[in-house]
């Protein structure tokens, strides 16, 4: 039984990657074991330290979905302005798109002289 998938240009063997991941996990575990020996779970050592400032409650310090990738959306603001306009949520618009795309496709097929 072979695990190798040949694409015609290269090959892909998932076993190699799985073995690589296992080796990496063993190495990570090994390095983690070399860490601070005096660490004690569920003591003051495990508390969050913010340079002496008060640590916010869990709900307040969790970064919510709306705050992630702000820069990405800011950069692509124009694109999103345009693309969101198309998503009206109105069924009439959906049907209009269907009619338009059908007409364009039919014209392309009729004009292109596709018959062999």
């Amino acid at each position, binding site marked *: 039984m072979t695990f190798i998938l040949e694409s015609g240009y290269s090959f892909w063997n998932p076993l190699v990657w799985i073995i690589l991941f296992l080796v990496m996990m063993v190495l990570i575990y090994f390095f983690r074991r070399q860490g601070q020996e005096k660490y004690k779970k569920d003591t003051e050592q495990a508390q969050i330290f913010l340079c002496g400032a008060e640590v916010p409650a869990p709900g307040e310090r969790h970064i919510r979905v709306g705050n992630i990738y702000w820069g990405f959306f800011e950069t692509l603001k124009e694109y999103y302005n345009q693309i969101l306009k198309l998503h009206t949520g109105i069924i009439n618009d959906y049907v209009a798109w269907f009619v338009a795309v059908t007409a364009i496709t039919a014209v392309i097929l009729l004009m292109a002289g596709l018959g*062999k």
Partner: protein
Amino acid sequence: MATLITHSPILIIAIPLVAAFLTPLIGMAGSKARNTLVVVSLTFVAFLVFALARDVVANGIRVYTLGSASPSLTIPPGSMVPVRIILEVDAMSIFFGIIWAIVSLAAAMFSLSHIADETGQNRFYTLLLLMVTGGFGMMFTGDLFNLFVFLEIASISGGALIAFRTRSADTQEGGFKYIVVSAIAGLMILFATGLLYAQYNSLNMATLAHVIQFTASDKIALALLLVAFTMKTGMVPLHLWFPDAYSVAPASITGMLVITSHACMYAAFRVCFTLYGGVIDGLVVGWIIVITGLLTMFVGVTMAVFQKDVMRFMSYHAISQLGYMWVGVGVGLAVLGTPELGTYGRDAMTGGIFHILNHAMYKPLLFFTGGALFHCTGTRDLAKMGGLAHKMKWTAILYIIGTLSISGLPPLNGFSSKILIYESVYRFHPILTMTGIIVSILTLASFTKAFHSAFMGAELPEYEKVREVPRSMIIGMVILAAGIVFITLFPAQVVGWILRPAANALIDQGAYINAVMGAIP
């Protein structure tokens, strides 16, 4: 066993149909008996599908003529053309059948707990089984009119299931939109079928493929069929209804709706390669499909990154992934009948079809994890979630498996299909591969964002009482995760056993025609 396999094409359709109508009756005896009926019937159907797949791969296309003295007797004595309803199962149709069998079983398992607190469960399972019937019918039918009929069965039951939770308005709106879109697509398919029937006096796809001339009305019929199936699949710019409908359905049903999208994609491929395969100039239609696929990939993923509703987020990703399949198979169509088909077209098609299989495993799994989050928190809003990995360890692990797979990270199965697509479509045009890689990066970025929002961080006080989802929901997700692991470990075997035969079956129009018409003169 041989008799069972001979009759399996009709049994695979008939068993869920009969079970659908038995469900309300058995349901009167109690929910346990009803649930057993649903799971047992779908398990038996899955067994038949795998047995039939083995037979089709080994012995070629299997036809089943209803009402005939022998199922293989497609043309009655004294007639020149087939007149009866014929089911025709080749490697491509059985490939979709395998997907449908696995996902519908997983969805039924997931539903046992997911909708356990809802009213009208007898109706739910009746509709679920009717949807299964419609899906198998679409995949196995050999004629255009029955394709329309089975599409209607799947669409009507799907629409009703989307609107199943009647207590909220958005489910009713989603169901309404789905029904309107499905009705319009169905009508256009019926109109196109009428155009072809008026000219060639037949509804059988093999017969039509044998005699089709590609007249002006044939071209209009092709446009109607292609665009109708494109809309039902959820391709950009006809995807607008997709997140509205898929995000509000019960998660198990959303997983199944993804596969009905695949079934419509199958129908579009069947129309292009089989029905019109002998007369179409694939380059123009292939480019139409490829451009649609590219748009779908990019618009889908950029809209997904923007979402805050976990199910809308998943829905836009489902749209985005459909683009990969469309691009892979579109490239195959564009080079159909040219030497490039042998050098990279066949690989592109195999990659596209491989991605359908992978998508059918990880996308329902991800929808199920979204459903699990909704089940436990009562909200779909990612902005209100956080720290749930502390309470929902199994769901978090299964979400990670789905995420790695959809993002195409090695060694997961998503990578296997994407590498096949990237390498082959690059030779058609490099922009296709570049777009694919960018979309993969954005996919990973957006799933990381959603994972952080829902699962990471400290435990939130509002979810103090949250517990992991019930066992049957976990089993439903594990069935799909097991499929992912299997395909990850054995990509070469999966490609060799079913995917290359499926791609070859799509290309080999003559074999499809011969199975019904006999040897072409």
